[in-house]
């Protein structure tokens, strides 16, 4: 026997799981050392989806950085948006009106439901239960359709705004949401029928990835991943934001801290979220949806309608005498309708022009003229009409447009200082840390992404288990690599 051992050296099988792998929830890469089927060592590698969102945030104004947060946790974009706007509102020292707060709580919880549905779907699929996956997607689709009804987008919504929400919700939407909340608990029962008491499901989840309460806190886990270990920490309860202090809900906790407990936590959380949505619908107060703080919030767009509304058939014309050929409008044009060399007067191709007024906003020399009702007229005619004085309505709108443009570009002047604000997204505690130097852009934007911290705990959960449990563990900590890598 000794001789055999001398001849054959045994070592662990080194397997590269990811970044292209069906069960690593995106582009997570795990390097596994396997002794047979047992995992000896796990090293997670992140960063394959790094897009520099934190750095981008430094070069964009507070308004412009909002759509970036959609792209972090794209599974629950709404929650991320809310996390961002809540943080920025605190920084500005403004408060959203009641109605907006309730709406945000409502859509935030819808987002939590949709996130947990996707989590359950993929977690069950990883463990092999295929039907749960499709059942969950059926309801997730329903929620996404409701999102579409609110704001026109399904996934990357960008619906909340600094100081409120983008647009008010309709009675029709509330009714269809109410219908969803009535139906949804029975759908949760449907999923539970399939897996909750299923022996195979229990065997695959109970006692897998056990982490004690103390250790979980030390690892920095948050959200359901932490609550599964029995720590009732929930940002919504401890530092309530939006309308969470006016709705009633329980924070479910587990006892063992294993995969099954975390699964139970999320299932109960879905029911709680459903309740919160119902309470929000019932308590939704009337009133404005944007805070009255013109220095910090976006201005209403109605005042620009005389120019930008599509039914107004204006034409835009560049006054050759005034134009210095700086090229600003050329770059601002989304359809490349403006042509011309540098330092020579530019020209607008009326056939391509969309009348978006972007060029009007950027022109520093007031060379761009609006010709009311001038769409489809010839060049000479436009030149003639461009000299005529404009109606007062349009002049006002023009001023407003230019002002709006610079406001967005420059950003609202935030008070100096730094602050950290956390919100409870479905995955855990999402924190935004801003350092403000008093300009319209943050000096530093740092995101505390729960997925990133949860990915770090994977080796702790997986070592000693089997390969199949690695997959179960990736599922149970509920990570999205968009948020993890940022």
């Amino acid at each position, binding site marked *: 026997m000794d001789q055999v051992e001398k001849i054959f050296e045994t070592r662990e*099988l*080194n*397997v*590269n*799981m990811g970044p292209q*792998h*069906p*069960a690593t929830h995106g582009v997570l890469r795990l390097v596994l050392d*396997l002794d047979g*089927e047992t995992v000896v060592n796990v090293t997670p590698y992140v960063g394959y989806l790094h897009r520099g969102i934190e750095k981008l945030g430094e070069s964009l104004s507070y308004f412009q950085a909002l759509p970036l947060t959609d792209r972090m946790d794209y599974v629950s974009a709404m929650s991320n948006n809310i996390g961002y706007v809540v943080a920025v509102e605190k920084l500005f020292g403004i408060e959203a009106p009641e109605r907006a707060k309730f709406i945000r709580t409502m859509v935030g919880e819808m987002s939590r439901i949709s996130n947990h549905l996707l989590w359950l779907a993929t977690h*069950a*699929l*990883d*463990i*092999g*239960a*295929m*039907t749960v996956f*499709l*059942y969950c997607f*059926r309801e997730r689709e329903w929620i996404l359709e409701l999102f579409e009804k609110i704001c026109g987008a399904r996934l990357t919504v960008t619906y909340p705004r600094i100081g409120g929400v983008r647009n008010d919700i309709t009675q029709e939407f509330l009714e269809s949401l109410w219908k969803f909340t009535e139906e949804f608990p029975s759908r949760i029962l449907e999923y539970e029928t*399939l*897996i909750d008491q*299923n022996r*195979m*499901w229990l*065997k*695959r989840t109970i006692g897998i990835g056990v982490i004690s309460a103390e250790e979980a806190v030390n690892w920095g886990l948050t959200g359901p991943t932490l609550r599964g270990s029995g720590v009732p920490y929930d940002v919504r309860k401890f530092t309530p934001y939006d309308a969470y202090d006016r709705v009633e809900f329980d924070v479910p906790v587990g006892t063992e801290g294993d995969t099954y407990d975390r699964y139970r936590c999320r299932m109960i959380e879905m029911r709680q979220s459903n309740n919160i949505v119902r309470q929000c619908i019932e308590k939704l107060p009337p009133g404005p949806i944007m805070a009255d703080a013109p220095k910090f919030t976006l201005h209403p767009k109605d005042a620009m309608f005389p120019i930008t509304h599509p039914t107004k058939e204006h034409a835009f014309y560049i006054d050759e005498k005034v134009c210095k050929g700086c090229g600003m409008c050329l770059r601002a044009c989304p359809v490349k309708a403006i042509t011309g060399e540098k330092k020579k007067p530019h020209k607008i191709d009326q056939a391509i022009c969309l009348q978006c007024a972007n060029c009007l906003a950027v022109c520093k020399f007031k060379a761009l003229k609006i010709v009311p009702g001038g769409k489809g007229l010839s060049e000479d005619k436009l030149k003639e009409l461009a000299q005529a004085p404009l109606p007062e309505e349009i002049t006002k709108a023009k001023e407003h447009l230019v002002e709006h443009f610079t406001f967005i570009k420059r950003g609202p002047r935030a008070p100096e200082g730094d602050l950290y604000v956390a919100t409870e997204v479905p995955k855990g505690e999402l924190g935004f840390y801003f350092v403000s130097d008093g300009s319209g852009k943050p000096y530093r934007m740092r995101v505390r992404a729960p997925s990133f911290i949860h990915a770090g705990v994977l080796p702790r959960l997986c070592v000693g288990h*089997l*390969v*199949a*449990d*690695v*997959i179960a563990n990736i599922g149970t900590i509920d990570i999205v690599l968009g948020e993890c890598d940022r």
Partner: protein
Amino acid sequence: MTPDTFIKFGIDVLIIVIKIAVVLVIGLLHVAYATYFERKVIGHMQVRLGPMRVGPHGLLQPFADGIKLFFKEDLIPEKADKVVFYLAPVIFMASAMVNLAFIPFSHNFIIADINIGLLFIFAIAGIGVYGIFISGWASNSKYAFIGGLRSSAQVISYEIAMGFSLVGVMIMAGSLNLTEIVRAQENSIFGMYAIPQIVGFVIFVIAAVAETNRTPFDLPEAESELVAGYFVEYTGFRFALFFLGEYIAMFIMASLCTVCFLGGWTLPWYVLKVLPFLQHVPGIVWFLIKVYAFIFFYYWIRATVPRYRYDQLMSIGWKILIPVALANILVTGLVKILL
């Protein structure tokens, strides 16, 4: 040799060739439509429609799939063991196809009516494992390797449980010839062995699922952890051969179950007594109904349950199925002696 015997011999050969052709064509067509059947069944279980685009209700989907697989690029990993890599799917497919010869589809409709039919099917099915194992080895990929190892361990252990579960049937029928097993069932009190051999039947069904690598025992090809398991490096038609082999193996297992436990092409006598007109229906119809019911059961399981873990699967096989199967043999034997 007189011309008479020569002609007789020629006719016999011709009949066998025709039978082989029929079984082969039907077998392959069956595979094509078994995939369609599976996708439709699972689709409807999962509140969706399944294939709908190619042909009415997606009926031509299997052909579209076949054509697609046929024209796919045939990729071979650079460091693969080429000869073995080529050989593996052929072994897998051939071992599954050979078994079609021993299945009695109906009264007198069997290609090779041999006395050790049951044993032979096991022997040939055992060769199929080599196809899986060497494909995992030859691919020179770690995922395929783990898949191959898992598969061979799984198939070998479940083959034991499966073999034991059928010993009860052998004792009751007193034969290994599949046709005679069916005839013995026809004349028994219950009309099918599934009732007196209920323990063996349940073990067989479980082991058959494991033997064909289906959910919840589809660990060799567990798509969530091993991506596709042993055939992860196979493309195009080589992949299709594995696919075909798997579905034919499913068909074999379903047929074996039908023959050994559900009375093959016959109906229990008590059913015929109540509904005498049923005896005019050809036996192959009953055979196929039973087989497809069993295959439907496969699909049903797949749509319902999660996957077992590797160690759990082994412990079920060795700690539960094999001891229970052994006890079943003992009880069956005792009853046989005492009666």
